[in-house]
């Protein structure tokens, strides 16, 4: 186990820092001023991303003998490759095709369903509370009491500029 770990460490230390691809002259021209050197110390990773077409390394690292012979054939003229071989070569380099990457999932249905479920559950809880927890409403909420309060608010000219009494026609005795 220690030997394996040592091998790993050597591998890590031996990994060279990969310098940025663009030269400083190109960077100067594109940005208009000097840009500092970027040094990428990350390990090469494979990823399927629509906006970064070429990952750091191919998908399949460990090639079988059949794969290796196919790779050899790839070094020759490509017109001699059959359709299946071309597809096999693609699948060696990449995991998914663009259409596969961009495929729509049904995740939104799960999310929306979850939202509605919890909304409904909350509704049930509120309903139960209204029946078993809340005390009765004060008598000022009854229809007659509300009507008398409204009449008093109009008599008192509550918010007469724009708000409440402003919307009541005092001559006709009705809302405007």
């Amino acid at each position: 186990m220690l030997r394996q770990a040592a091998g790993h460490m050597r591998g890590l230390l031996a990994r060279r820092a990969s310098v940025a691809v663009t030269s400083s002259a190109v960077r100067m021209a594109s940005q208009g001023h000097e840009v500092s050197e970027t040094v990428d110390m990350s390990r090469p990773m494979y990823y399927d991303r629509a906006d970064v077409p070429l990952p750091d390394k191919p998908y399949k690292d460990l090639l079988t003998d059949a794969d290796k012979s196919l790779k050899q054939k790839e070094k020759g003229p490509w017109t001699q490759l059959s359709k299946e071989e071309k597809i096999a070569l693609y699948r060696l380099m990449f995991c998914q095709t663009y259409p596969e990457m961009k495929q729509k999932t049904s995740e939104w249905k799960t999310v929306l369903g979850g939202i509605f479920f919890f909304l409904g559950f909350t509704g049930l809880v509120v309903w139960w509370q209204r029946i078993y927890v809340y005390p009765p409403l004060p008598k000022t909420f009854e229809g007659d009491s509300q009507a008398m309060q409204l009449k008093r608010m109009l008599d008192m000219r509550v918010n007469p500029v724009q708000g409440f009494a402003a919307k009541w026609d005092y001559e006709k005795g009705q809302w405007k």
Partner: protein
Amino acid sequence: MAHPSQLGFQDAASPVMEELLHFHDHALMIVFLISTLVLYIIVAMVTTKLTNKFILDSQEIEIIWTLLPAIILILIALPSLRILYLMDEINDPHLTIKAMGHQWYWSYEYTDYEDLGFDSYMVPTQDLTPGQFRLLETDHRMVIPVESPIRVLVSAEDVLHSWAVPSLGVKMDAVPGRLNQTAFITSRPGVFYGQCSEICGANHSFMPIVVEAVPLEHFENWSFIMLQDA
């Protein structure tokens, strides 16, 4: 007082509150403009299929989105400071009233000419007559003459309270051992409601403030009657 389904401020009953309403309209318009712009940018960012991973900087837009917010802030600050100084103008009040906060009622003292003082308790819900407003009515109202500058000295006898009447644009903390001064003029006669605005214990929600602005002779009659009753 507030009317059913009200969304905005109550109609102003004092000139300062009118100014505050207009300032709020101004600031809210700016806020709506900025929010609409940001919402548009968010939607545009989320719905585009284009990508660009190589932007490092851009001096022009940085200048714009530094200068433009600074200008907007100045446009908000100038009216705001104007109202601030307006509120502090020398006003030469006709009447000075002391509003003292207690747990859980207000007491008002009119000591300019005679010694008039009374407590103002909320009318309990079960004692309301039909037509009265729940949690807002009091047994005694603070009666003032309309269109006269009034000075209110606010303090507290026990814990922190706050004397607030939204339609007059007035809110002043009642701090025990401290006298805070506020002033207002009522532009129209009427009854103006407010509620205690600083948490002060169990019945903090049940110590409202009612200011009644009446013509001067009615005020004189009222104070005469109150003095006799005391």
